[in-house]
């Protein structure tokens, strides 16, 4: 059963068809929430809410890119969460390193390599969390999740030109933030 058919079946109220769509996109939805919030527990709650909300409102999805639609719901939910919590998400590097999301994915990975990867991921995530929300969303969608500019434009509900400018500003800011911690970067990324 292809995606369009699954969508049509889900619109008719078939939960099993919708669950197949959930399995297709849950990793991207969860990772977007995690990168936006830097909080695994909140990202888990947001991801579940996104799929419940998507199922309830699937009839409003007429046509287009389901992934971009789901990511748009996710980004809106993250924005509402950050707004309602009124918490400045300045997560420390130590807190990021304690985050279970950076646990080793490969059991054969050498301890040194795992430590370096963990530290690097912590540095990058810490830099990401210091960006303004709209710039963070652009850079996570394009550079982390690998969406095209057009898909990101649909997910952010802004023109492609806005995606380009936000992405450029985010990358410039990240360059400055990462340059401050060059000792933690791999050799090839040091200037």
């Amino acid at each position: 059963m292809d995606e369009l058919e699954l969508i049509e079946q889900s619109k008719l109220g078939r939960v099993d068809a919708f669950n197949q769509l959930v399995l297709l996109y849950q990793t991207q939805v969860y990772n977007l929430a995690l990168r936006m919030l830097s909080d695994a527990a909140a990202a888990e709650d947001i991801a579940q809410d996104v799929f419940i909300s998507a199922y309830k409102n699937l009839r409003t999805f007429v046509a287009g890119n389901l992934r971009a639609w789901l990511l748009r719901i996710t980004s809106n939910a993250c924005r509402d969460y950050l707004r309602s919590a009124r918490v400045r998400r300045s997560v420390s590097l130590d807190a990021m390193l304690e985050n279970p999301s950076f646990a080793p994915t490969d059991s054969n990975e050498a301890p040194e390599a795992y430590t370096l990867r963990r530290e690097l991921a912590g540095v990058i995530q810490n830099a990401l969390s210091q960006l303004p929300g709209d710039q963070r969303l652009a850079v996570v969608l394009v550079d982390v999740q690998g969406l095209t500019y057009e898909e990101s434009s649909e997910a952010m509900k802004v023109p492609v030109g806005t995606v380009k400018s936000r992405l450029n500003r985010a990358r410039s800011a990240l360059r400055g933030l990462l340059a401050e911690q060059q000792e933690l970067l791999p050799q090839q990324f040091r200037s």
Partner: protein
Amino acid sequence: MRLLWRRTQRHPSSELVSCYADGYVSPQESVWVSEHIGWCEDCSKVLNEVRATVGLLRRLPTVPVPRAFTLREEPIPVVQAFPFGRWAMQGTAFATSMALLLLVLLDVTGFASDSTQIPSGRPVGVEETHPRVLSGSTTDPQRLLPVADEPGSEQSNAAINSVGTQPTSVQPSGMESNLAAKLGTAQESLGNADGQTSSSLVERETLFRWWRWELGLAAIASLALMLTMGFRNSRSMR
């Protein structure tokens, strides 16, 4: 000479360099930027930094989900899409809210019942505007016309004089005629027109008028609430 020409050339913007790193430039821009970074060290450095940053971001691992986010098999009610789009829904909600506000104001200020009030502020009952409906012994609907329809009758003049402030030449409104007809029909169906006292009918009519307003308010308030809830549900879909 070539060095002088290069120094007069403008540099590509950082946004263009960023897009160039992703391959999102037109063929003309691509040729220009690639030619430019061939000799401009500053722009070449910017491009390398952009590529390094993107390379770092791509190294962020994809975190596996802690659990499946699939839904339970119990059916969750699916929200029906508003047929005319979000803006129509917002407009309808706004118009309904305004109508509700207007009705509340009319109700609070008493303007809505001004046309049926005597100067003292006491609501005019059916007996005062349609005395024959209440005091007459007939149940014939044709006889339940307002007294002003028969300008020569003594009962008509007596009734108008009893109101005191209403001019004798005023014709009854259509609403009053309809109300009289409805009350006459009600009396006919009950079959006890002669037995009912005029005061109970006045109370009933006043109660009916009051409930008509309150029911209208309640209906509009319910509609406004439903539309507002629908709008709230659709907000996350933006």
